[in-house]
């Protein structure tokens, strides 16, 4: 028996490992193994491809190009993934996702070029190649913009300009029109410079990806990354159709379908629809919003009350129930170990401490769980929003560490607010509230937080790590 006939079987095994991997990743106990099973399947599939007839037909050239690509790409991926800080995880995922989208676009380009130069291509093949190219390129440039926004290279605010929708629509329409023209040309209906048209489609798709993600605010980036992840999956599936490779179709479709579900789960956690995320321009704070807020403050006479670490520590030390509300500020300052130390210290004094985890606190769902787990905070101390909200009225102190939008009561009460309707943590129902924050600057949603004007609230300004360290010292002294 020719060993090559085993390649499709190997691909089938890989496809099964991907299903098992995804299944495993959806449970806390099985997740680590799920990820490793899928990785093993991937390794198997790549190894088998070295024996593919087509690949071997390329001879030494193909081997050289592939080997060089595997080494360079592998080294880049490995070092990037090892070195990235836990806070920068979301943009790293965006980057790797963009890489996959770019690869899918290039594969479609190469295969279609080969077909056009060689024996000719059917309309079906051209259409699937165009889909692979367009979706892959949109995912590539969209992910690059998402990376830039999260990394702070470009403004995380929603980027708006006059005639934006027209520009975006023209880019989209032009991309579709050109790919239809190319399909007609490949079928022999019209004579066109095909490679030039294909390049045009690629450029328009890249621009469209940028135009699609630029107007979306940083707070929505997790949803966008998840959506682009599903896009890349579909681009890979399209490339699978072009190459007639079942494994690409299975794996790409699996990611496309599960990514769509995941995107819906995430946007539901923020009480927004996907359409609202893409076209709602959340995070485009009205011009002069801060000044307007300041004026409002003066009008109703409420002011922000600032406190010292010692006062706040005393409050904590003599409380019975404390709820810690972590947010992005904690992640940025890497304050999770200090927070754990503070919680241990309080518990040794008989204070009951739990953590309230908003589903989208930080920059990704589960961000806070990951960070606190790193500091060995026991899993059962982390309470979901639905479980913890009824506890707030009984909490003596709610300690908000670098969380903002997820605690904003405007989500419950202010109809006009961009975050109206988003489920929030009912921090304002606690007896006393201590907010650790670097400044009065609004959060990622770009709006002011009424919580800070609440008479029960005291602000402890400063870096989360330093502030918590001071609280630890204060509690020790109390």
């Amino acid at each position, binding site marked *: 028996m020719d060993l090559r006939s085993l390649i499709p079987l190997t691909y089938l095994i890989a496809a099964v490992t991907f299903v098992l991997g995804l299944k495993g990743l959806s449970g806390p106990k099985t997740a680590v193994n799920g990820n490793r099973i899928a990785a093993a399947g991937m390794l198997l599939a790549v190894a088998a491809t070295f024996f593919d007839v087509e690949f071997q037909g390329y001879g030494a050239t193909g081997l050289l190009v592939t080997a060089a690509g*595997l080494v360079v790409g592998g080294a880049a991926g490995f070092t990037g993934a090892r070195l990235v800080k836990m806070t920068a995880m979301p943009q790293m995922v965006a980057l790797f996702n963009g*890489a996959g989208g770019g690869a899918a676009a290039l594969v479609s380009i190469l295969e279609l070029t080969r077909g056009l130069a060689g024996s000719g291509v059917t309309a079906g093949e051209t259409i699937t190649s165009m889909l692979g190219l367009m979706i892959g390129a949109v995912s590539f440039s969209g992910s690059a913009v998402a990376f830039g926004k999260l990394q702070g290279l470009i403004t995380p605010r929603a980027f708006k300009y006059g005639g934006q929708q027209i520009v975006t629509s023209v880019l989209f329409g032009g991309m579709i029109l050109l790919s239809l023209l190319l399909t007609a040309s490949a079928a022999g209906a019209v004579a066109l410079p095909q490679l030039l048209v294909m390049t045009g489609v690629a450029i328009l798709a890249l621009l469209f990806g940028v135009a699609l993600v630029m107007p979306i605010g940083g707070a929505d980036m997790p949803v966008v990354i998840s959506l682009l992840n599903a896009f890349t999956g579909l681009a890979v599936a399209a490339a699978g159709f072009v190459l007639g490779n079942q494994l690409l179709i299975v794996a790409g479709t699996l990611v496309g379908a599960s990514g769509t579900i995941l995107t819906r789960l995430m946007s539901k956690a923020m009480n927004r629809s996907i359409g609202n995320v893409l076209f709602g321009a959340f995070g485009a704070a009205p011009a002069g919003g801060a000044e307007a807020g300041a004026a409002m403050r003066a009008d109703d006479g409420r002011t922000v009350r600032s406190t010292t670490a010692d006062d706040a520590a005393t409050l904590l030390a003599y409380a019975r129930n404390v709820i810690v509300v972590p947010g992005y500020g904690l992640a940025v300052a890497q304050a999770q170990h200090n927070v754990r130390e503070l919680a241990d210290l309080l518990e040794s004094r008989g204070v009951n401490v739990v953590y309230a985890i908003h589903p989208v606190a930080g920059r990704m769902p589960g961000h806070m769980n990951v960070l606190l787990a790193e500091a060995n905070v026991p899993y059962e101390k982390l309470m979901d929003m639905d479980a913890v909200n009824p506890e707030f009225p009984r909490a003596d102190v709610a300690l908000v560490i670098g969380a903002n939008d997820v605690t904003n009561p405007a989500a419950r009460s202010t109809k006009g607010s961009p975050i109206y309707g988003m489920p929030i943590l009912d921090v304002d129902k606690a007896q006393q509230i201590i907010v650790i924050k670097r400044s009065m600057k609004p959060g990622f949603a770009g709006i002011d937080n009424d919580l800070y004007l609440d008479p029960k609230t005291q602000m402890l300004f400063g870096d989360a790590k330093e502030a918590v360290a001071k609280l630890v010292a204060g509690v020790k002294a109390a």
Partner: protein
Amino acid sequence: MTTEAIVGLYVFILAIFVGFEVISKVPSTLHTPLMSGANAIHGIIVIGAMLVSAAIGGPLGLALGFFAVVLGTANVVGGFVVTDRMLAMFKQKPGQRK
């Protein structure tokens, strides 16, 4: 339609159902690792990149093939390693808990 295209379509449609079913109930804690793991899985495009790596010769063709393999590999390796790092934080470290 060719048999190959029909088979591909069968696989496509059935995989959609599997994809929907397989992650129906996920705790929000695992959303990010799951997204990252799925992200690594679409890195399977690397085998597609291998299969077209030298499909069109010439410096430009080979350069495009090379970049396709680089991007695909970065997606696979980076995706799985990042996911593993995220998940490592969920593991209990013996003796460090009360």
